[in-house]
């Protein structure tokens, strides 16, 4: 765990307590079974809004707390542990896009509402099944935006979109000229297709801002993945201590001990890489892009390993819908794919380092 200040420690402890008491994995299961269009429990999101989490990266002058990305990451990690579905990561990334953008009217109009948890905002970047910000056809002319965005997280419920066009980032309110088509996916969260057909758009910044905002969203997602990996590992470790075969606890078998030791080692490296990226963002470091690609590549590989092993080491019970292992496996693959998988980020890291 990174060294936290008093505010961050309080925030993390509060988030952990809330997630464990109010949003255990059972709450996610209930939501999955109820299958609301928005892909999260609205009452739980409302509580998060009241706790001020949506305003963690919003500047104080617009009603936020400006606690920064390490703080946001601490909260998302706790939510990730219990697979708590919420539009927090998307809303925070969109808020950052607005806060960093050039439009003062957009800041005054939207940031206070976001900080108060009154609306869901999201990023709409990719136009295909694989993250590729270099391939964008969406364009703006005469102040209106036209294009189709695929697999937009929280696309079903967002009232506000931060949209990537050929010449940079734009802000689009989710009413006139916006059509959503739900995509039912394995993780039971919202990943809608969103069509913009001549929607009013306000410019936030050029392609550089686009890259920066994607990095923020990627680091936030990596924090959620850290929580998932942590809990998937802990659940598996607990299971090995209770399951008896050949008259022994599974946890006494050296072959399994070494697999767990290896996974735990990878988990430690993952935590360092993820916290390192969040700290780089907060410090405004010039190599933040590298730190983010490092975090997402390692987070993807490690969560992949641990979520696979979670199913394997639980044996048959891990294959059943009744057990939680499948939830971690499904959400893990979605998180790996979002904002670029490990291969994408290794390639990017190579380019940034001049290999």
């Amino acid at each position, binding site marked *: 765990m990174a060294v936290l200040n008093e505010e961050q420690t309080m925030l993390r402890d509060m988030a952990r307590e809330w997630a464990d008491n109010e949003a255990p994995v059972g709450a996610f299961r209930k939501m999955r079974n109820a299958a609301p269009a928005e892909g999260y429990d609205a009452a739980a999101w409302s509580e998060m809004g009241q706790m001020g989490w949506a305003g963690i990266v919003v500047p104080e002058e617009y009603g936020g707390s400006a606690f920064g990305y390490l703080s946001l990451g601490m909260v998302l990690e706790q939510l990730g542990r219990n697979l708590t579905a919420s539009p927090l990561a998307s809303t925070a990334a969109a808020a950052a896009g607005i806060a960093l953008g050039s439009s003062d009217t957009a800041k005054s109009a939207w940031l206070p509402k976001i900080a108060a948890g009154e609306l869901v905002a999201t990023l709409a970047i990719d136009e295909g099944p694989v993250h590729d910000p270099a391939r964008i056809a969406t364009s703006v002319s005469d102040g209106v935006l036209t294009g189709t965005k695929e697999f937009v997280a929280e696309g079903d419920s967002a009232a506000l979109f931060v949209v990537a066009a050929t010449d940079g980032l734009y802000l689009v309110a989710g009413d006139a000229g916006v059509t959503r088509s739900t995509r039912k996916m394995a993780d039971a969260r919202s990943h809608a297709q969103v069509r913009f057909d001549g929607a009013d758009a306000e410019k936030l910044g050029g392609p550089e801002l686009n890259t920066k905002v994607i990095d923020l969203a990627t680091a936030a997602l990596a924090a959620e993945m850290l929580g998932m990996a942590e809990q998937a590992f802990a659940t598996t470790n607990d299971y090995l201590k209770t399951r008896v075969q050949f008259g022994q606890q599974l946890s006494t*078998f050296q072959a399994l001990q070494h697999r767990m030791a290896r996974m735990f080692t990878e988990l430690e490296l993952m935590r360092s890489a993820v916290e390192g990226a969040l700290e780089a963002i907060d410090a405004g470091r010039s190599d933040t892009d590298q730190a983010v690609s490092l975090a997402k590549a390692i987070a993807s590989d490690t969560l992949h390993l641990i979520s696979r092993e979670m199913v394997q080491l639980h044996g048959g019970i891990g294959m059943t819908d009744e057990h939680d292992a499948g939830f971690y496996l499904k959400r893990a693959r979605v998180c790996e794919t979002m904002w670029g998988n490990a291969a994408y980020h290794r390639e990017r890291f190579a380019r940034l380092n001049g*290999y």
Partner: protein
Amino acid sequence: MASAELDAAADPLATFRDEVRTWLAENFPASLRGKDNAMSAVDGPTELSPEDEAWKTAMGEKGWGVPAWPRQYGGGGLDRAQVRVLHEEMARVGAWNPIGGMGVMMFGPTLLESGSEAQKQEHIPAIARGEVRWCQGYSEPGAGSDLASLQMFAEDRGDHYLVNGQKTWTSGGQWADKCFALVRTDKTKKHEGISFLLIDMDAEGVEVKPIRLISGSSPFCETFFTNVRVPKDNLVGREGEGWTIGKRLLQHERSSLSGGGSAARMFAGKPMGALAKEYRGEDDQGRVPDQDLRMRIVRHEMDSRAFALTLRRAALEAKSNQGPSAATSIMKNVGARITQDRAELSIEIMGMNGLGWEGEGFSADELNQTRTWLWGKAVSIYGGSTEIQNNVIAKRILGMLDHQ
């Protein structure tokens, strides 16, 4: 408050920092700036230049080679914050620590915890001044990873022990003055029959034979003990308590093997990507041409950075002076993996030039790379193999139990 008082309040270490700067300016010979430490205790006999000698003496007298050790035994008596300032100021002027070796890394911390007052007074100041070299008598031909099955026997002869047996992998044994050894004092018990004994390497009956390794070097020895008389005063702790003390020492060892020093060496030298372009050229987009190699280099670089971040995180998180923990096993394993991956990648990049053994046609760097690769195979074996570290992680961190 006056502004000077405010400044002092803002940085309580300012006075100490000034003291360090002044002392370094007066004592660190400018000619040694940034030079590597020529005084490592394991690598071989050393002939020190007058400047090296002067620097070692100055640091030894100041106690700053072992800055956190107690003053009454010749240490620096500094707290953690002061040690950090000392290291920062040394780095600033390119100064390095001339005091080192197994006495500093392993034996000293252990004796400070477990030794008698007389033993501390006898041994610690000599280590702090870099005067005495210690070697480790742990492994035996039949007791490597299963260390507790060691057989070297110390028979109680009243005022002394009579020691017979063999140790192996004695790092730097041929140059050491003294040996801290695990010996069996009771053949009827396994762990409880082991004691921690200090043996003079020049005592009658001690014989040292260097072992030639696959890399061609001989940093380790076989050490034979035949009717060696060891005074009873040289027993550390109580008889039969050696396993507990010995394990504690291993934690110090792992901590030093995985710590900042080795990490600094690991990241020294040319970046892998630059090395690859030097030997393999570039494709039309300025990339390493072999895509498979290029991605493996990236994986290695990412691993290295994540490890560096983890070392930094561990250092920042260590709030108390409780010494090394089971988490050092994680660092040891990752450090070993990265060291070996780096060497393997390097020789692959260099092709046949990375496999030279001696003579013409190879640069010194290339020949060195061959040796580094081969020597590096030891890092996942010594100090407790990767498999042993995984056992430690599983049992002590994850709470998994032994098979019954």
